[in-house]
């Protein structure tokens, strides 16, 4: 049994977002900080925000990104997806929720 990690975006409606040719600047009123996000990181935020319960399992996020990037799910891609989630978590833009362990059988 493995516990599934869910992620949700923190206070997305409060963010000020500007799109540029090379990425996005995001102002986070809660912290007063400005962040620069690449398109993949912004896609994660938007995907989480539009999810039915405002949260998604990590593997669903990964699958979503894989579909977008037409990746074959290589270890390098998985590592990049994990790094993106870790970075967004560190910036306080998303937060993890650990759900009840799923039943394997």
């Amino acid at each position: 049994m493995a516990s599934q990690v869910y992620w949700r975006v923190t206070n997305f409606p409060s963010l000020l977002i500007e799109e540029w040719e090379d990425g996005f600047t995001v102002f986070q009123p809660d912290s007063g900080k400005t962040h620069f996000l690449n398109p993949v990181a912004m896609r994660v935020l938007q995907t989480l925000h539009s999810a039915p319960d405002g949260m998604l399992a990590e593997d669903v996020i990964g699958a979503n990104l894989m579909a977008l990037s037409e990746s074959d799910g290589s270890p390098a891609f998985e590592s990049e997806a994990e790094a993106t989630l870790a970075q967004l978590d560190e910036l306080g833009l998303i937060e993890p929720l650990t759900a009840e362990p799923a039943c394997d059988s």
Partner: protein
Amino acid sequence: MIVSGFSLQEVKALLAGPGLRVSLGPVNVRIQTRLQELARQIFILYAKHELAEDDIAEIHVRVIARRFIRKPFSAAVECLLDGQSVLPAVPVVQALDLLERCIKLAFVTRINYFLVFRAASLERNGHVLLLPGQQRSGKTTLSVALIRQGYRLLSDEFGILDLGSGQFVPMPTALSLSEDSIQALGQFSPGADIGQATGDAGFGNAKYLRPPEESVRRAGETASARWTVFPALSALGEAPDERFQLEPITEGSMFLMLATHSYDYETLGAEGFRAVSQLVRSCRGYSLAYSDLESAVIALNDLTDAD
């Protein structure tokens, strides 16, 4: 009425008494001092500035002589901002430099209705050229070289963005030139009298240069930015076409670099974010590596003439 409408003796009396109230563009400053040499320097450097018309001065500075118990025979001075000492005391020969630093410190820490960049700002063909750079990065030297090419100086140290109008506001103050700057300008424009109408900064051969009369007279004329150029002195090739590199920068980079070069971006919060966003959308950004003043001026003339 401008400061030179008074005699030196009248200015000294004002400085020693109720204070000389000068308009520096976006702010009024009230200066008080009994130091005779400093009064003379103020009279020269601020000769063309308008006297503040109303009674309100946002910045009130007073330069006073100071004696220390440990060094009773060395003359030192202190600058009080609204009665509080905010910078370390310095030898009396550096009184002018202390006064200038105190006024600028007050501006960036107390005035909160502008987004202020660490940048020289100049106007050419009706639009502002913003040159962000850290302290002692050569902004003033480059500004003086550009002034000689006909650019109008808004400020050699600040890019002052009015949050309401989105326009850049002039604040022509005395220009501080280091010994190296004076040497570089001498090579750029041999025979130019760098020392004209200046006050000694009090260290080495550093000087304070009076801002151009036209800049002071037009201190009420704002303008919108069209070019943001991040200049950097670099060791480049000797050939004429290798002496500078002017490269466009991406919008995202420009945003982050502008925010980094602002004194109060974080303090202004969402307002600062919106202002920088608008600025990035309204002007083009470049990095400029240059090996000497002449090549920098050529690059900037080409850029500002092209559009």
